């Protein structure tokens, strides 16, 4: 008899959880449960716990805060945040990578790299005068190195000024490009 009751209670235990979902129990099962609960203290207690749990779960709807508290970020001025692919304002930069590269160049690191590059190019261009200064200041090593580099470039370009200019430009692009990429990666990671 007790086994029969336990089996019954196990069956009703599963039904009690389903009770609160209207479409989860058939009308026959509901009637069975209605008839059983008043006669079984264990199932009555189980029903009570489930009922409390259900009520507390239902109350969770009120835990959802108003959406307004999450929206200030996206109600920034128009253009501050724009859906990707939306119609662009006239004159806007059409390529985000170009914009990112420009930002990288305009960053402190990018400006420093550009200044250093231009300084190096100027130093190479005015190597003779700078060399003379270094001679006067008792050190001609820099001048000699400058002359060696200049002679090497002249040899490579075979004295053609166009080729020489091309070499200068290529070196500048390589230096700026590589340093710009490093800066871009730094900016993205930070």
């Amino acid at each position, binding site marked *: 008899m007790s086994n029969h009751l336990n089996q019954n209670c196990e069956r009703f235990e*599963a039904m009690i*959880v*389903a009770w609160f*979902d209207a479409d*989860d129990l058939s009308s026959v099962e509901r009637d069975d449960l209605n008839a059983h609960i008043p006669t079984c203290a264990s199932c009555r207690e*189980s029903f009570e*716990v*489930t009922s*409390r*749990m259900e*009520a*507390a*779960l*239902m*109350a*969770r*709807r009120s*835990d*959802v*805060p108003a*959406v307004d*508290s*999450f*929206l*200030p*970020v*996206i*109600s920034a001025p*128009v253009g501050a*945040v*724009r*859906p*990707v*692919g*939306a*119609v662009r304002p006239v004159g806007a930069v059409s390529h985000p990578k170009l914009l990112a590269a420009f930002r990288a160049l305009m960053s402190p690191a990018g400006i420093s790299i550009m200044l250093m590059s231009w300084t190096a190019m100027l130093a190479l261009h005015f190597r003779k005068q700078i060399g003379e200064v270094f001679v006067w200041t008792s050190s001609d090593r820099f001048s000699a190195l400058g002359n060696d580099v200049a002679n090497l470039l002249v040899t490579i370009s075979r004295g053609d000024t166009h080729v020489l200019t091309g070499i200068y430009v290529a070196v500048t692009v390589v230096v700026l490009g590589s340093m710009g990429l490093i800066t871009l990666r730094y900016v993205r990671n930070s």
Partner: protein
Amino acid sequence: MPHPEDSELVARALRQDERAFRDLIQRHHAMAYAAVRSVLGDRDEVQDVMQMVYLKAYQGLAGFRGDARFSTWLYQIARREALDVSSKRRVETVDVETVELAAGAHHAADAATHERSEREWIASALGEIDETYRTAIELRYMAEKSYEEISEIMSVPVGTVKTYVHRGKAEMKRILSRPAWRADASKS
């Protein structure tokens, strides 16, 4: 006046109609919030994550091609963001005994402070069950979604959703049937 479809609101939002985006988010806010809460619980990061979810939804709206429902798409963003935060800062699991000890230490003079509200216990029980079950339950109760809607949001069959909810609630009931819960429940 009939409510516009999600697809119509998306199209209007893409034409810089901020009101349309706001309506879209308003419509699915409870679902997104439930999705985030199911991963993070009631941690402080929820506020930040929700803002990030809506920002990413706004920025990536053009990438929404309409293959799935907007709710499914937003749910995936919410879940991904919550999991990302969760993985960065590991959840410190606090069991019931620890909570009780802490409460007792702070309020030893007042025996009544050992009572915990049903809402807290529910949150505690939800925190202990499987995350998939928790998500289904949060969507069902917090977001008040139907089984069919949850099925579409979670991309699983309706029967599976019912199983998730049923098993989750059975598991919660088992947790809530512990003596501590029953003692407190009888006091409150």
